[in-house]
């Protein structure tokens, strides 16, 4: 038997190239191409009064200088709104080059094309733009206040407002024996892949066609966007995502201004043009995420069981909404995690600010939702004086309640129905892994040594494998080489390896005969893209289905050649053979020859094939419904998303003097159904956890009130090094998804999702101070300590008579007065 590859810790086929400098990222391609640079706005909100390019034209090597006025009709209007939604009543998107009004620092105003980047930047420096400054709107409070407007025709800066409700949450809360309110805040962060964006475009004048290499998470959609913008037939545009140096969400946004502009310039000039984003550009002209203010109102019983949950939050969507309101919709729905909320009401307002656009960053709204829910769980436990685990347990959806329908609409517009998961089992695993029951002894021991430690837990459920579809093409060559292509893209997840494992198993061929291509529209034209932890679910199952088709075809052809019933055949190690009689076999390579009635004997397989006769001489060589070639295409399109889940526990130590925060242990239990390659899944979790810890302790975008981004470099934006990321301990639970043939659920984003929540919980446990804002720096913790001392601990009383954290969480009073909305 061929060794089953699914489930094996197979080493990556990508690595040898990448380890020897043979990777090909977009800036590695097209040496000698003209290079573009952009004049970008130094202001957050302004009007362009005048542009003087005279100085730039004198620079040797400048080929072209473009403003909005120079663009053709397809590029003159605003860029597309990718994902409309009825609640997004005031969508606004940017122009590729600023037309008149600038809405964030870094918006592109002019594009210069020159012989190289040095020269292009020289020219940019000599261009004089005159601005009329407008009052900038920065931060959610300013946006919500609505005194100044980002877009003059959008009242209150409100892009979207959405309410979803199941039951009557407010009445349920009012009638509950206990009530709490919390005000929470999460700051902006960003995907920050080490390779920024980049585009390289070649126009072929002889063929009237365009080839574009882009560092994107969706080459098929970039292709469609470029064809539309440049008014080219789709068949004349090809887009390739070469090696991509990380994405984490930011590269799913498309088309970026630079993508359409560079492609257009290449066509306009008839010469190859490239643009490679530099790090400052990535900070001020790509996308951010995470920024939200939240207000939670919850009613519960004596056991901490949720009776009603009412969440209101304000989401900062930046200057434009090209990617719609996916992020806040995810927050609103995924906030519920593994719990039954009782009656649930969620209301969000998505607000414009004069800052960089907000599009999904790994986790995509979930980290904020989990932060709200898990902070609420801990507040309930503190209020009731019961164990934090007990509160979670009593609210869990039980395994026998699956599939569980939350009666809400998810990000894909389909019902939010959990397909699988065993939350009590996951909890038991994570408690065992971290040693929850032994922690109090450890805390006492630490206290004796003058050390302050705390433990936290956070749970999440993640909708993964969002549709509508992905497809795959599997082709067996006459050499026996198996080519697999899928349209979605890779940014380092190891898709080539993981998808090859699936193809090898389904087809019965050795792994090293399988070659996978992703993200190349020349090889596969229909795809959605890589986001929402969807590759293993969507393309994984598509590859399995396509390989299954090829297997069936191979058995049918081999059956004719060997004169046996195809159902008596199996494919093992690349040979189609009679079950129980391995001697009666025929190599897949030979079957590939037989599959094509045109047989010039180019190779050994073709020569061997002459001994077999297939095909009915009374019919045509290619029968109705058949195609030549041993290949097959199929698509996987699920009824709805599949839901992975996990639970994290962390132990932190806070320095009693300096308020430094150190993560001592970080434990993960993760359920993504069938593990195709545990090595790769663990790698995904590791990276996610690092971003989660970063979001909890280090990373934030610091805008000043003028809309200047004060920390737009790696010197000031604190991405963690090896010294900042704790050791990650992992255990898996595998509850296969019943929704897809492989039983897989997504894994890409999981690690980051509960990061802020679990670190906040552990710090709160160590300090005894409510932690309501993320990230938290040592100086902020120090400040919290001193303000706690000033207040000398709160003694707010709830109407049920118990002392509680209520006022300490900054929430509204029981009389319903407005909360202190920061």
């Amino acid at each position, binding site marked *: 038997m061929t060794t089953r590859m699914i489930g094996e810790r197979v080493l990556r086929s990508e690595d*040898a190239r990448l*380890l020897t*400098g043979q990777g090909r*990222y977009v800036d590695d391609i097209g040496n000698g191409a003209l290079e573009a640079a952009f004049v970008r706005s130094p202001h957050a909100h302004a009007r362009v009064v005048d542009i003087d390019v005279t100085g730039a034209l004198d620079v040797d090597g400048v080929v072209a200088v473009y403003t909005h006025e120079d663009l053709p009709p397809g590029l003159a209007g605003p860029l597309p709104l990718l994902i409309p939604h009825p609640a997004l009543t005031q969508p606004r998107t940017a122009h590729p080059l600023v037309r008149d009004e600038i809405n964030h620092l870094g918006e592109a105003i002019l594009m210069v094309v020159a012989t190289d980047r*040095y020269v292009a930047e020289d020219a940019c420096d000599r261009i004089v733009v005159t601005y009329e400054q407008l009052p900038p709107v920065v931060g959610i409070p300013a946006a919500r206040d609505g005194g100044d407007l980002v877009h003059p025709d959008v009242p209150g800066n409100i892009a979207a407002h959405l309410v979803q409700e199941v039951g009557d949450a407010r009445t349920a809360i009012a009638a509950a024996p206990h009530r709490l309110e919390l005000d929470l805040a999460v700051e902006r962060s960003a995907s920050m892949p080490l390779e920024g964006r980049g585009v390289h475009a070649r126009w072929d004048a002889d063929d009237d066609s365009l080839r574009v290499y882009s560092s994107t998470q969706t080459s098929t959609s970039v292709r469609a966007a470029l064809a539309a913008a440049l008014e080219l037939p789709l068949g004349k545009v090809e887009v390739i995502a070469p*090696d991509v140096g*990380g994405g984490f969400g930011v590269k799913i946004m498309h088309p970026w201004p630079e993508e359409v502009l560079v492609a257009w310039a290449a066509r306009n000039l008839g010469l190859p043009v490239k643009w490679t984003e*530099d790090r400052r550009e990535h900070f001020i002209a790509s996308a951010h995420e995470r920024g939200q203010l939240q207000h939670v109102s919850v009613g519960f019983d004596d056991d901490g069981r949720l009776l009603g949950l009412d969440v209101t939050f304000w989401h900062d969507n930046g200057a434009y909404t090209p990617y719609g309101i996916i992020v806040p919709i995810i927050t609103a729905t995924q906030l519920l995690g593994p719990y039954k909320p009782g009656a649930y009401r969620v209301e969000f307002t998505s607000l414009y600010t004069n800052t960089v656009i907000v599009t999904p960053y790994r986790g995509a709204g979930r980290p904020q939702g989990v932060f709200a829910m898990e902070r609420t769980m801990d507040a309930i436990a503190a209020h009731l004086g019961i164990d934090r685990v007990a509160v979670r347990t009593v609210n869990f959806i039980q395994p026998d309640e699956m599939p569980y329908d939350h009666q809400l609409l998810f990000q894909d517009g389909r019902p939010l129905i959990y397909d699988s998961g065993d939350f009590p089992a996951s909890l038991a695993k994570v408690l065992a892994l971290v040693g929850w029951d032994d922690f109090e002894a450890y805390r006492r021991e630490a206290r004796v040594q003058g050390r302050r430690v705390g433990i936290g837990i956070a749970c999440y459920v993640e909708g993964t494998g969002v549709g509508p579809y992905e497809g795959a093409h599997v082709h067996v060559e006459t050499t026996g080489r198996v080519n697999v292509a899928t349209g979605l893209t890779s940014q380092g997840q190891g898709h080539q390896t993981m998808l090859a494992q699936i193809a090898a198993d389904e087809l019965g061929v050795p792994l090293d005969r399988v070659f996978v291509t992703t993200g190349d529209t020349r090889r596969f034209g229909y795809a959605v893209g890589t986001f929402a932890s969807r590759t293993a679910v969507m393309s994984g199952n598509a590859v399995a289905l396509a390989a299954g088709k090829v297997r069936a075809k191979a058995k049918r052809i081999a059956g004719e050649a060997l004169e046996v019933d195809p159902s008596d055949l199996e494919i093992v190690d690349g040979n189609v053979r009679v079950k129980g009689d391995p001697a009666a076999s025929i190599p897949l390579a030979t079957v590939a020859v037989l599959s094509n009635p045109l047989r010039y004997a180019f190779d050994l397989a073709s020569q061997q094939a002459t001994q077999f006769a297939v095909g009915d001489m009374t019919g045509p060589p290619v029968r109705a419904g058949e195609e030549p070639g041993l290949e097959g295409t199929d698509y996987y399109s699920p009824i709805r998303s599949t839901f992975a889940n996990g639970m994290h526990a962390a132990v932190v130590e806070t320095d009693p003097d300096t308020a430094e925060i150190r993560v001592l242990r970080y434990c993960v239990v993760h359920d993504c159904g069938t593990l195709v390659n545990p090595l790769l899944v663990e790698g995904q979790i590791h990276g*996610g956890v690092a971003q989660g810890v970063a979001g909890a302790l280090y990373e934030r975008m610091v805008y000043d009130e003028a809309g200047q981004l004060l920390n737009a470099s790696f010197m000031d934006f604190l991405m963690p*090094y090896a010294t900042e990321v704790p050791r990650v301990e992992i255990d898996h639970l595998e509850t296969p998804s019943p929704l897809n043939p492989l039983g897989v659920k997504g894994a890409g984003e999981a690690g980051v999702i509960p990061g802020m929540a679990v670190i906040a919980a552990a710090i709160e446990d160590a300090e005894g101070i409510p932690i309501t804002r993320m990230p938290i720096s040592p100086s902020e913790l120090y400040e919290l300590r001193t303000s706690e001392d000033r207040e000398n601990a709160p003694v707010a009383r709830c109407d049920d008579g118990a002392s509680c954290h209520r006022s300490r969480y900054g929430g509204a009073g029981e009389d319903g007065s407005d909360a202190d909305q920061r």
Partner: protein
Amino acid sequence: MTASDVSPDATYDILLRVNGVPRPVSVTSRRLLSDCIRHDLGLTGTHVGCEHGVCGCCTILLDGAPVRSCLLLAVSVDGQDLTTVEGCANPDGSLRPVQQAFRECHGLQCGFCTPGFVTTATAFLAQHPDPTRAEVVAAISGNLCRCTGYQNIISSVMCAAELIRQTDTDAVIEP
């Protein structure tokens, strides 16, 4: 010649010894070494992640010691020996222990930061053949990775040290 006499467009003929091969090249005075390596010499394994010396993707070995090639001007290293990630493999392209360890321990994902880690680890292990985990963490703490959370990079460097000791392979790049 004073600094003010230097035109940014003035070109200089320099000679670099890159991965053991003499490479004459003409560069302008302002040409970054990283750009020279990537675009003039065509060795695109050296990556540029920030161009301000923080991320470490562009780390190469200059006379055996790790440096940020984005912080150096090409003219300033005239006559010196450079080792890039391409030179960290065997002449036939097969993997040396550091690279082998990164593969076996899944020490890379997108691969963009990887060349900087490979060169840094190569230089570190040449000096520290039997490092502790803490020493490894310190050694790589000048390089950013956004994919791996460093877990498997640390394991890779530990594993590479063991591989080098076991096989007694000449993983050390001779300057």
